[in-house]
């Protein structure tokens, strides 16, 4: 990880842990004490809430920074991370460059072109619109 990315991640981490504190505040109901903090459904769904919560704040900050480093605008990255569950955020943080990214990329060099042409015809792949599998 580059130095800039580390700094970016730390900044985002701090702003996000603050944001999550604000977010975790219970909804205020008129005429009642504001001290009610419930265990969230998402917390109940994980086995080790304390540890996981800390990891996830870091993971979320990492994801936001990683999305930005890969061309997503600051605002869009924030909204996108907020919509991920903790488990999804952790997964994206760990796998962002390896996880499948469906996109239809057709940047194939010549040898691979020939291999894929053959596998297309044999019915293993479907790269080229003009091929028809023999099976």
């Amino acid at each position: 990880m580059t130095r800039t990315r580390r700094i970016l991640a730390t900044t985002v981490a701090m702003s996000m842990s603050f944001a999550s504190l604000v977010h975790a505040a219970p909804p205020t109901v008129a005429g009642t004490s504001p001290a009610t903090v419930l265990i969230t459904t998402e917390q109940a769904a994980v086995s080790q809430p304390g540890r996981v919560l800390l990891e996830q704040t870091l993971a979320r900050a990492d994801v936001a920074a990683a999305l930005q480093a890969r061309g997503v605008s600051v605002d869009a990255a924030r909204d996108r991370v907020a919509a991920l569950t903790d488990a999804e955020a952790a997964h994206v943080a760990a796998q962002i460059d390896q996880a499948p990214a469906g996109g239809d990329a057709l940047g194939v060099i010549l040898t691979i072109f020939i291999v894929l042409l053959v596998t297309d015809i044999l019915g293993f792949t479907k790269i080229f619109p003009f091929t028809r599998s023999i099976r």
Partner: protein
Amino acid sequence: MLNRRAALFGAAAVGLNGCATFDTPPQTAALMKGVAVPGSSGPGMAPAVELAAVPFFPQTRYHCGPAALATVLVHIGVKTSPEQLADAVFLPAREGALQPEMLAATRRAGALGVPLQPQLAALFQEVAAGNPPVVLQNLGLAWVPRWHYAVLVGYDLAQQTVVLRSGTVHRERMGFTLFERTWARGRHWAFAAVPPGRLPVTAGEADATQAAIGFERVASPAQAEQAYSSVLQRWPDSALAGLGQGNTRFAGGNLRGAAEAFERVALKHDSAAAWHNLAAVRSQLGETALARAAAERAVQRAATQEPNWRDAAERLLRGLPG
């Protein structure tokens, strides 16, 4: 001879990884066997279905994710477009969209994205039920992946073909064999988008519950409650969905309803989290004695069975008046 040579060449080309053989892939084979049995066509499956009314958004370069997502969302009545969704899922440096972000964008659009069982039969049952699944395919090979999202809108057991909204092709017909291979290379990943209050017919309990939990992050309390209710309707014993129902009622200001939901889970599952939340809500309702009883039960239960909630339960009990 020619066939054998072709097979050898094919095996070499595919990379000798042992996965690629000329055998019919397993699920296709099983489906065909089910169909071949006289008088049965799989587990009550319609022989052929095509959802012709599912819209089509031809993708622009790299944007199959937003296009597939727009296809299923517009189908269930969400007003959106691939251009709008691109901001929510497209990752420029990867020239594509990641799976978790496809689910997250679905919830941001007001629908639940529920991952499906890794079975062709499950996909077909969803199509028959009017829930066209988004599928992840690897159209290339394991070592030259070409990841692609498409929407499955039809199948024909007799012809052994599926119909996809795929890329720039409105009705891409593909044999079961090729479809299963490309989908298996995408680790059999698929999801259905449904409005809150509904669930895919084949969804598993864990997937449906997780989808509702994700939805709760971004939805209004009323909509999130609908999502949990649909999970409870199908799996009345789900402790998490019961807890979610209580939490979303609380978030919507319905304290009585929240207390009822928490109490139901607490009594049925003796769950520390449910006792904890029940105590907190009762305290806020001014029912101090009942709140104390529930908090004591939460502490007791956490001490013996669910140590994760010990701190929270003890803190709550200490904070109760009197």
